[in-house]
């Protein structure tokens, strides 16, 4: 046993030594990309296999090779459990030689994986998780937050609704890291715009029946009921709000703070119409996005969500940075990624702050009425472009403290 340990230690030392000696090489002679997300639960449709497909598309466009070495994509299900997520990523990095972890929806899991990738100095490209803490107090030199975050959602949807006259708010919040952060960020924006928060109720993750919480929201008398939840929870709460006639009286209105294209598709326009939402991506905005999305749809049968499109964009940028840096060493590539502007079908002139926040334009959208839609997936009308600098926090505001 001891001999084996010693041998292991010697090997590790050798590996470290050779990695340092041979900068400019690819570790393990393969660039390994691990897509870690919810593949079976309430967030599987907004990321899931779709994110892996999008990553593979980025790899194909790079010719399947980086610095002349093959690129491999693997995927696993974290089941929305932080312990499973951090164990899997540890295993991937230590045993399987994974160089970069992608997606990881569920802020709770992402915060755990961020600790692992920071410790192991590996790149972490976050698409699914929302909490702005990932580039705030929990930031990492090798962590990148790409598609959106709670702060951008709060600025987009929160401010827009207060401006329309929705002054008093009640929050229906998913009871974990993400929901709490989204509620906090939105409440701050609401107050900043001159609104008030009259109350909140915390519902467990993956609740089947929201009627009781909705009734509490209704009796609060607030003008706006802010849904600080995501995926299956958002779908259920919107559907049941419509069933209980919350919005029919005209006195109260729903604000879905995080709504994905897959949610609207599942709800149907009859129920989802006129919801106002903030998104980092919509397929039907320009030719480039349409072309990519049609290609994606040919593979999956669905149009991409912002999480899936963001997975593509971030991996594409990562592979460019690997080529430019001449290595797949985490901190070196991370520095290179931050030097380069992000220009692809997802973002134009996106820039990456030192805390890993990718700053790009966000869009305020309204869900079309059934009469306005030309067919499946024709769901959003973009009503405003929110400039990246307005949507996302500056480095100083973020509260991120990175050494050096």
């Amino acid at each position, binding site marked *: 046993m001891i001999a084996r340990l010693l041998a292991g230690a010697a090997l590790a030392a050798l590996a470290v030594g050779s990695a340092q000696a041979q900068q400019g090489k690819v570790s393990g002679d393969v660039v390994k990309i691990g897509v870690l997300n919810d593949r079976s639960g309430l967030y599987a449709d907004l990321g899931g296999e779709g994110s892996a497909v999008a990553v593979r598309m980025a790899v194909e466009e790079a010719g399947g090779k980086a610095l002349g070495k093959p690129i491999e994509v693997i995927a696993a299900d974290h089941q929305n459990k932080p312990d499973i997520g951090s164990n899997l990523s540890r295993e991937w990095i230590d045993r399987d030689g994974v160089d970069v972890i992608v997606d990881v929806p569920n802020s709770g899991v992402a915060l755990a994986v961020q600790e692992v990738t920071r410790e192991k100095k590996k790149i972490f490209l976050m698409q699914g998780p929302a909490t702005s803490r990932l580039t705030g107090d929990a930031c990492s030199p090798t962590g990148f937050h790409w598609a959106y975050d709670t702060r951008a959602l709060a600025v987009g949807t929160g401010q827009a609704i207060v401006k329309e006259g929705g002054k008093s708010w009640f929050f229906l919040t998913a009871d974990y890291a993400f929901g709490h952060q989204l509620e906090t960020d939105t409440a701050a924006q609401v107050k900043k715009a001159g609104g008030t928060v009259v109350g909140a109720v915390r519902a467990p993750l993956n609740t089947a029946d929201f009627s009781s919480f909705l009734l509490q929201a209704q009796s609060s008398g607030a003008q706006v009921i802010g849904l600080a939840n995501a995926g*299956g929870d958002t779908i259920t709460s919107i559907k049941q709000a419509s069933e209980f006639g919350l919005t029919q009286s005209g006195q109260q209105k729903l604000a879905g703070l995080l709504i994905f294209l897959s949610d609207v598709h599942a709800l149907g326009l009859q129920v989802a119409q006129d919801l106002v939402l903030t998104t980092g991506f919509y397929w039907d905005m320009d030719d480039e996005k349409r072309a990519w999305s049609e290609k994606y749809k040919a593979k999956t049968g669905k149009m991409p969500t912002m999480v899936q499109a963001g997975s593509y964009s971030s991996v594409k940028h990562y592979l460019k940075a690997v080529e430019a840096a001449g290595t797949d060493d985490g901190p070196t590539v991370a520095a290179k990624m931050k030097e380069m502007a992000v220009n692809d079908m997802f973002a134009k002139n996106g820039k990456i702050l030192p805390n890993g926040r990718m700053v790009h334009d966000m869009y305020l959208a309204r869900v079309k009425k059934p009469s306005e839609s030309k067919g499946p997936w024709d769901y959003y009308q973009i009503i405003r472009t929110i400039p990246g600098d307005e949507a996302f926090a500056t480095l100083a505001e973020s509260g991120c403290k990175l050494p050096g």
Partner: protein
Amino acid sequence: MSTIFGIPPQALFGQLLLGLINGSFYALLSLGLAVIFGMLNVINFAHGALYMLGAFVAWLLLTTAGIGYWWALLLAPLVVGAFGVVLEKTLLSRLYKLDHLYGLLLTFGLALIVEGAFRHFYGVSGQPYPIPDLLRGGQNLGFMFLPNYRGWVVVASLVVCLATWYAIERTKLGAYLRAATENPVLVQAFGINVPLMITATYGFGVALAGLAGVLAAPIYQVSPLMGSNLIIVVFAVVVIGGMGSILGAVLTGYGLGLLEGLTKVFYPEASNIVVFVIMAVVLLIKPAGLFGRER
């Protein structure tokens, strides 16, 4: 405005009514489980998957054949029941002589397979199922807005639960069934076809799950996960009520629905565990459940 424990009475009544609605689903599902356990001694873990199957049959009938809610209410339980009969004949019937655990493992495996297959084909976000035209809209009760459809669910489940209880406890067929569980050999000696009765019981039990699925379709998304979200709570209901006790399953179903509703008012964060806390307490004090008897 006067309050009860700091909560306005309107809110309290509203929550109690909602609890009753959720309790209706618990009661319908735990009734099927209790019937199956009582007669077959099988812990049917596939119950949640069959409930989901009922909802999907209704959805498929609507989207592919244009057959609406009311026919689905009849057809979906028949389809699910028939599926159950096939399962019982081909798989479950081989396990009666073995320990309970084997039936549990088999049905659990079946549940995973059925759910996995639907997840593969339909994703997890679920499909919308419209509320039938006749039951759209709602009543303003003064203290809350009650959607007509939810009112219908309470009535329908009460009727089905009462009818089942009556059929088993008060009719001749029910008497045969109960006798067959006590002593199958003796009952068979009287010329009654016990294996047929057992197959029919399983078919009926899972048809109840299918019926609950159709009732649930317009309220929840028709989703592959809808069964697994519910089944654990339903098992807790059956354990609290007493395994195999039909009246116990029904009363506990409604009772726990109400209790869960109250928890959502006073301490919402605990609403998904309150049932299990009660289960633990009941098991400590009365291991056979509230209405069960020691064997």
